[in-house]
């Protein structure tokens, strides 16, 4: 995939390995291959959903794009600027344009800071507002995420999970970014609160023309919010396509199994479905299977899958898949 003009973020052959050290002299004995050769573009104004099971490397990918975790190798372009080689003040400047919403609304807000301080901090740190301006802006932001502006003087423990997540969203919006990585922003919330937060994210996207990378393990929510979806497994993207393509015409056996594993809140529709139940667990990323990562759990694996790593190829326009046998599902 090459960088084209409508791509805000371009990720090329991204690797993130976490070294494992052993012994007295802390010799490196291996690596957790969390992200192992991932390429994709995120277009301006779209929501790219990134789904996978725990340990698939989806959060690490999100963090590596924002340079919160430096990639082992590979390329991350943001607005045509290569982030991987930026350092210090230059990188800090870029950070204004890209923000993150974290998964755990309990751990991602400093309990000793007031809501006003939390939401206003980015403005002061980046020197874009005086204290008085920041206070004014905090009020606007809180109002925008449907919180009472008077909450600015309260502390995080006084709020519920859903309200805290709104505070996290207000903080992410403070610097008027163009790109936000949403790392499982709703998975810690109750169903009725999830819908409130998702609706808010959608409204904000329209209003501020935001681009989202929406990381989640919940495929139904990803289908709801995304324009395109990438499915990750053990550090590798297995399939990437527009949301309707991926849900209606999945070409990768992993995506097919994943989709069939999701329960549908409708007993009649649920009983009519054919389910593919995968055997076993996701293997360790320290020592991933040779060839295709998915072959150990794949219902259609053959000899070639152990020998040759399948190419990530475009089988239909805009529909990429990494499987030797995807033609079978065309």
């Amino acid at each position, binding site marked *: 995939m090459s960088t084209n003009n409508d791509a805000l973020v371009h990720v090329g052959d991204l690797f993130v390995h976490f070294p494992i050290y052993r012994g007295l002299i802390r010799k490196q004995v291996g690596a957790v291959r969390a992200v192992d050769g991932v390429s994709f573009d995120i277009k301006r104004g779209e929501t790219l959903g990134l789904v996978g*099971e*725990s340990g698939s490397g989806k959060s690490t990918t999100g963090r590596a794009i924002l340079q919160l975790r430096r990639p082992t190798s590979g390329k991350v372009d943001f607005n045509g600027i290569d982030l991987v080689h930026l350092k210090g003040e230059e990188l800090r400047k870029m950070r204004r344009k890209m923000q993150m919403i974290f998964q755990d609304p309990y751990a991602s807000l400093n309990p000793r800071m007031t809501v006003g301080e939390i939401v206003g901090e980015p403005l002061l740190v980046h020197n874009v507002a005086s204290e008085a301006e920041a206070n004014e802006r905090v009020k606007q932001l809180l109002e925008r995420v449907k919180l009472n502006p008077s909450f600015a003087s309260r502390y995080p423990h006084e709020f*519920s999970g*859903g*309200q805290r997540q709104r505070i996290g969203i207000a903080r992410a919006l403070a610097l008027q970014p163009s790109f936000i990585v949403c790392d499982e922003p709703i998975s810690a919330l*109750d*169903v*009725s*609160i*999830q*819908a*409130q937060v*998702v*609706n808010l994210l*959608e409204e904000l996207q329209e209003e501020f023309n935001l681009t989202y990378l929406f990381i989640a*393990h919940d*495929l*139904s*929510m990803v*289908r*709801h*919010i995304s324009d395109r979806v990438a499915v990750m497994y053990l550090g590798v993207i297995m399939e990437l396509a527009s949301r*309707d393509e991926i*849900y209606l015409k999945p070409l990768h056996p992993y995506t097919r*199994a*994943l*989709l*069939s*594993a*999701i*329960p*549908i*809140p*409708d*007993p*009649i*529709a*649920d*009983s009519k479905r054919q*389910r593919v*139940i*995968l*055997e076993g*667990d*996701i293997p360790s990323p320290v020592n991933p299977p040779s060839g295709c990562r998915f072959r150990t759990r794949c219902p259609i694996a053959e000899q070639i899958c152990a020998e040759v790593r399948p190419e990530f190829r475009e089988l239909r326009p805009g529909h990429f898949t990494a499987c030797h046998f995807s033609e079978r599902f065309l």
Partner: protein
Amino acid sequence: MPDLLLDVQGLETIFKTPDGELHAVNGVSFGLKEGETLGVVGESGCGKSVSMLSILRLIPTPPGKIIAGKANFFGQDLLKMSKDEIRAVRGSQIGIVFQDPMTSLNPVLTIGRQLQEPLMLHLGMTKKLAEDRAAQLLDMVGIPNAKERLSDYPHQFSGGMRQRVMIAMALACAPQILIADEPTTALDVTIQAQITDLVKRLRSELGMAIIWITHDLGVVAGLAHRVIVMYGGFIIEEAPINELYANPEHPYTLGLMGSLPRVDETGHHRLTSIEGLPPVLYEKPTYCPFAPRCKWVVEKCWKINPPLLNVGPEHTAACWVDTRTGKVRE
């Protein structure tokens, strides 16, 4: 009804907190038939887990206290039993599986030791017999090399495997009832599908009744025969599975269904979120606990808390408004 295996009437549980008495369960009545799977659905804090733990007398006392109710099980009231009597029921006639497979196994004892404990305690098996039976149980829940794995410790098992071990433990003494408290919530979807599939298989092999506590309307759809929806410590709707999903009646149930995105949805629509937050009840409400968040609310809702009213075949809902016609019920 004579064919009820478990008959719970008017259960009320409170917790003493520094801020006052928290009314967690406010008069819950339901029956469980032999071989039936009952889904208990609700969001965090709705009282679903506390109700079921109260029946088993697993509520920490103090601060918790069961202040009213009966729970008839084979002609005996579980709530009036002595500590020794209830201990003899727990784990032998009623098995329990908890949400978090990481913390509900003892990390310093082998899986074999933990599986043998209920067998030796409740069934009086010798160590040798218990060992054989433990291996059979592990095999039954689909753990390969069952015999060798008995000497392994919990950390050597993955999340899904640990939940299988928990299920094996709960079923060790062939209970009449299995209470499963969010058993798949901590697991990935593909593993969740494995576990629900396993429970379905065991249910048809062993014929036990199941109480499945969950916040996920999707999981319940494929599993339960009948569903109870809880809110604010009350049962607010009860119906056979197909009836509930085809004709949800209570505004809260309608809201929950509307806030769920479906993986088989087509096109895009905003989720109908329920505004506001679930209640924290320091007094048993005399009004409908859902009234503050309800779109349909009428004056009567603030005056009298609606009891469960018949709204269809075996279908009851606690609401003064007929949400299909918008008319107020007598």
